[in-house]
């Protein structure tokens, strides 16, 4: 395996078609379990919201209402973290298909096999996705801890409940914004992979067969 001197793309040359790289293999395995997790978490978040709404309507226990005000968003945002992870993994899977398929076509044609190295947007996609996941989960864990503390009778947690809920909401929201940007970067990487393939395909007929 060696590095190509191409000036327009950073590629690697190999004797055989390369398979998906590690993030792409992880994406292929994990997109479905993450989706299942999301599909389970969203109804739980909705159900907690409905229960809390009934308590509000019946002038129920204030501590329970405050606790569910933390636990409901925690469940809902476990769902969002999972569904954004599923989207990210599905994008990684597409990038893996493009990488492997592009190599196989060149190999079948008997030409030199050039594979695009991961562009900067691809690295940024992975880094931002990991950060976003941690930020959302930090908000979720904060909500879960405060909710559990209120249920456990912690008067201090109940007193600070509103302020903490506002903070955790802010944290979760910035996490969602980061995740959406990460997804945008992943899709931008797909554009680059397609651009490389369109150009590489036009080069193949003029090249000598191996």
């Amino acid at each position, binding site marked *: 395996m060696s590095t190509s001197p191409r000036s327009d793309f950073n590629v690697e040359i190999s004797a055989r078609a390369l398979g998906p790289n590690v993030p792409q293999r992880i994406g292929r395995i994990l997109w479905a379990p993450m989706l299942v997790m*999301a599909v389970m978490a969203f109804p739980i978040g909705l159900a907690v919201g409905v229960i809390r709404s009934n308590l509000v309507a019946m002038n129920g226990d204030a501590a329970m209402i405050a606790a569910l005000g933390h636990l409901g968003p925690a469940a809902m945002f476990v769902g969002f973290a999972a569904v954004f992870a599923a989207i990210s993994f599905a994008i990684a899977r597409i990038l893996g298909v493009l990488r492997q398929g592009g190599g196989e076509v060149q190999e079948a044609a008997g030409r030199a096999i050039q594979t695009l190295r991961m562009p900067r947007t691809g690295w940024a996609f992975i880094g931002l996705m990991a950060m976003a996941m941690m930020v959302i989960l930090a908000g979720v864990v904060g909500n879960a801890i405060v909710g559990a503390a209120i249920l456990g009778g912690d008067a201090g947690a109940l007193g600070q409940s509103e302020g903490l809920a506002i903070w955790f909401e802010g944290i979760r929201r910035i996490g969602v914004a980061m995740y959406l940007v990460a997804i945008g970067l992943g899709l931008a990487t797909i*554009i680059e992979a*397609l651009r490389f393939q369109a150009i590489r395909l036009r080069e193949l007929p003029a090249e000598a067969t191996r």
Partner: protein
Amino acid sequence: MAIAFGALTRPQAGSDLQAPSRHRTIGIALAAAGLMLAGVALIGSIIAGDLAGQADAADRVGSLGAWTFGLTTAAFGTIKLAIGLILVGIVRRIWLRVESVKAALPSLLRAQGGERGALGEYESEFGPATATAVAPRPLLIHRMAGLLWAPMLAMGVMLVYAGFLLSLGAAGNVTADPALSASQRAWVQGLQFLGEGFLLSGVSFLLGTILGAIRAGGGEVQESLSLTVRTLRMPSTAKLFIALMMAGLMVEIAQFAGYAYIATVPASADYATFSTWLGPLREFGLGLLLSGIVLALATIAKALGFQFARITQIITSGR
């Protein structure tokens, strides 16, 4: 109108392959701008959370809560619009790749074609597929997707930003007219999440347009070489994607109706009760739409895999 949208997603033959995608560049810049807006809203939330524990600060907390909500949702909408732009760039690149395959493939064949294979349905490595003499017509859902992605994105952005402007009004009225402020906040939430629903629907329709381009492009390539046209049938993930998208959009319309109702009863018990479950409901709707998007992306991966396998088959067997 359909022709105009088609021109947005399919570049003219002979377009410059080397030129970097403008949609990609603008999309990334817009997404970064959206992230900055969300950062500003985060600062507002931190201040509001700090004030929440202090006496006599309820109005300031309410005011901060009103505009930070509007700004964050506007930020989400901006980033989703950016994602939409990047997806338009993907559709255009798929068509440029189709042109490249058409141009290169005849020179890459390593075997003579011989007899055409049998026509009809068959089971491929990637699921049920059909073999036809000519390229199949676009599916209804692909035609709808090509027509609807742009109006959905446009309506979504307008609603999200109209809601943001209203949130500024609601923030200003917290002290002077609490009932009006509560009513405006209900409208803000309803409008903005309906907008988010439209934006995610626009993104979903763009993913449908990508699937349509992969299907139509594959057919064009095979037909141009007078080969049997092999096409993947709609996978079950695609059917589920459509169902989830429709369900998610209906939930967002329902939450909008709910907020429109409580906006008329701002000082009532109904307001408190309804707003407690409308929040989770609107998020549940977005969750359905996002789950559908996951399935659309999974379908795209499968369709691309089928297409690569078909190109490889054509090169090695000539048919």
